């Protein structure tokens, strides 16, 4: 999730960068366009100013040629020198040429065109008069009045033409003034827009640069973090003795982590990462395991675990555990990624544990065999000794001397004692035995059976065994719970007070684990609490835990007979039921045994 957010963020960043870049390009193009336009209009306005000056020049030339024509006409009239006439005609040509030039220049200007037309008209009329003057002059040497009139008219035309040209100059002056103003505005305006667009693009470029710089910084930061992570990963692999590999299925390329090489006893990148090269290190007998493991990963797409041996470069045999899994990345490419771990130490430990377990099983079997010996081979001769004793007691005992009778009684007592020991030991080892069959059993019946079993002892001691509640029906190992009742009840009667008849009382309730002293119990679980209390000799509380240890006895042989096994059996039985047993005692008042069995 976090990764997705990060990549989305990364996408956004590159989008912003692209946007800024595009904007910058547009700004640059805009600036270039504006500048081009500006320069073009600048040159246009310059051209139009130049155009006005050209018109001035042509008008001046027109006037000049007109004047030259007039001067030469006069010169000829005065001197009759034909060179004047020649120049006069040349000037006429020039006037015409100037008119053509002007016509072209002011072609687009309607007012000036009209002005030029009337100017041209005036000039034509002027030179019409001039031509007539020259013609009359050729006919008669004397200057006639008509000629004079012609000359005067011509001069008047000339004056009018000058006025007309002055008018045109004025008109052009006006135009020029406007054009100069526009040009000036243009020249003033161009730097401002240029400056503005340059500033704008500069702004965007700085923005883009800033963005790139920022991204570069964050990329660097990420790169650094990546480097650190890589280093951590690298060290972790070394510490944990693991390595990883990745097999790109489409390109059929493999990559190994550095530690992959180290685990094989090589330097990083010492050989090309290929299956074949890796297989060289796998124990020849185990190569099929690696192949099958990869196939399994491909087949069911779940993690496939395989264990195989590897022979390192230095020849050392190591045990590897490899887990491979097919994954598909966000671009839809398929890989098998795997983690190899060197489990040699664990393997040896496991091996040792296995051996120990086998030892344990063997010793358990020996114990069972010992039980068998105890139950048959020890019991057998003892039973016969007892039978022989009973035979002697039945016939022949009376004939013995008093001393021998005492010895005989000693033998009888010791044999009985030995018999009890063997029986209790057998019960103890049976309680310890592995096969425990839990069955639904009514504890009331088991309690009654126990009472039945102890009926002799109860009668002999004039004891009362009472149950004031209904005991639960529960999943238990029935014969063991019965044994538990037998042992505790007989214990209570055996350690009775000398002068009051024993009373054994059983009680039962349901409690939570929290009410059980000590912290071993699951606090939220419910337990059957069964307590058996008596009015016997009790014991000092400090012995309460020792009571349950094997062969531990609080009393001397002569005072109270016992093997020190009975309560140990109780403890084992309760532990078999995942329960707890506690003893509480008050000397000369009595003792209470409390059993907690999980519901």
């Amino acid at each position, binding site marked *: 999730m976090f990764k997705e957010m990060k990549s989305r963020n990364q996408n956004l960043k590159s989008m912003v960068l692209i946007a800024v870049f595009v904007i910058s390009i547009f700004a640059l193009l805009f600036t270039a366009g504006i500048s081009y336009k500006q320069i073009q209009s600048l040159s246009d306005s310059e051209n139009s100013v130049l155009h006005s000056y050209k018109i001035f020049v042509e008008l001046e030339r027109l006037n000049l040629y007109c004047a030259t024509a007039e001067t030469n006409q006069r010169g000829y009239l005065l001197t009759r020198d034909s060179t004047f006439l020649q120049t006069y005609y040349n000037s006429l040509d020039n006037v015409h040429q100037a008119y053509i030039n002007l016509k072209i220049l002011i072609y687009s200007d309607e007012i000036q065109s009209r002005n030029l037309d009337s100017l041209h008209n005036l000039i034509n009329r002027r030179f019409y008069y001039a031509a007539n003057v020259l013609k009359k002059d050729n006919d008669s040497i004397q200057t006639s009045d008509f000629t004079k009139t012609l000359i005067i008219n011509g001069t008047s035309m000339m004056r009018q033409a000058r006025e007309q040209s002055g008018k045109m100059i004025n008109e052009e002056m006006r135009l020029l003034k406007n054009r100069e103003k526009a040009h000036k505005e243009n020249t003033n305006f161009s730097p401002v827009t240029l400056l503005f667009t340059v500033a704008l693009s500069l702004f965007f470029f700085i923005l883009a640069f800033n963005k790139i710089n920022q991204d570069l910084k964050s990329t660097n930061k990420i790169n650094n973090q990546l480097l650190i992570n890589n280093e951590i990963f690298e060290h972790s692999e070394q510490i944990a003795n693991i390595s990883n590999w990745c097999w790109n299925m489409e390109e059929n390329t493999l990559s190994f982590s550095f530690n992959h090489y180290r685990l094989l006893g090589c330097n990083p990148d010492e050989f090309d990462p290929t299956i074949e090269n890796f297989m060289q290190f796998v124990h020849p007998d185990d190569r099929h395991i690696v192949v099958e493991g990869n196939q399994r990963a491909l087949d069911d797409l779940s993690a496939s675990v395989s264990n195989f041996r590897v022979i390192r470069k230095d020849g050392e045999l190591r045990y590897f555990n490899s887990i491979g899994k097919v994954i598909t990345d966000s671009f839809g490419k398929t890989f098998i990624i795997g983690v190899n771990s060197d489990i040699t130490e664990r393997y040896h430990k496991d091996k040792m544990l296995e051996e120990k377990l086998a030892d344990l099983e063997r010793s358990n079997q020996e114990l069972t065999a010992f039980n068998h010996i105890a*139950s*048959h081979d020890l*019991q*057998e001769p*003892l*039973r*016969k000794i*007892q*039978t022989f004793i*009973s*035979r002697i007691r*039945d016939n022949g005992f009376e004939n013995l001397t008093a001393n021998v009778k005492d010895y005989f009684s000693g033998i009888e007592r010791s044999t009985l004692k030995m*018999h009890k020991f063997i029986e209790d030991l057998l019960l103890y080892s049976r309680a310890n035995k592995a096969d425990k069959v839990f069955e639904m059993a009514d504890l009331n019946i088991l309690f009654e059976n126990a009472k039945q079993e102890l009926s002799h002892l109860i009668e002999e001691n004039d004891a009362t065994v009472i149950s004031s509640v209904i005991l639960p029906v529960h999943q238990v190992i029935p*014969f063991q719970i019965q044994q538990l009742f037998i042992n505790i009840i007989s214990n209570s009667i055996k350690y009775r007070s000398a002068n009051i008849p024993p009373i054994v009382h059983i009680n039962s309730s349901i409690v939570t684990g929290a009410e059980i002293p000590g912290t071993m119990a699951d606090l939220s679980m419910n337990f059957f609490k069964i307590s058996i209390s008596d009015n016997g000799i009790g014991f000092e509380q400090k012995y309460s835990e020792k009571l349950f240890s094997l062969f531990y006895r609080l009393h001397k042989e002569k005072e109270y007979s016992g093997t020190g096994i009975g309560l140990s059996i109780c403890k084992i039985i309760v532990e078999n039921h995942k329960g707890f047993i506690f003893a509480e005692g008050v000397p000369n008042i009595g003792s209470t045994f409390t059993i907690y069995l999980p519901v």
Partner: protein
Amino acid sequence: MENEPLEILLADDDEDDRVFFKEALEEIKVKTIISFFEDGLQLMNYLNQPGVRLPNIVFLDLNMPIKGGMDCLIEIRKNNRLKDLAIVIYSTSSTDEDIEEAFVNGANIYIKKPNDFSALKASLTQVINLNWQYHILGFKKENFLFKINHV
């Protein structure tokens, strides 16, 4: 029928036990003919003789060399001619496993060898005086193991 002596077989490898058994039977006021076998093989050889007279009760010790009592029991129950014999297991063992196995394999009564001579006598008396027909008909696991309330 009352005067007919009861024919009893005992297969037990222990000589002392055979003697105790014999003495106990002699002290019981019932006419019996007793034959002893030292292992299961001897017993089976005897029983498998053609035309042999079948006994009234067979006592089998479990733990014997060559052939144990349990094997004999299984063999007898498989044999058409012998399968109706009254069989009493007579063993030192009192483990649940042995008792269960003997019951499953079809023994009629299980006696744990007592460690007291008078208890032995009491057990044997009870077994011999048992109304066998009734015992076999109303056979239940509860009265399979003989409890001798006499120490």
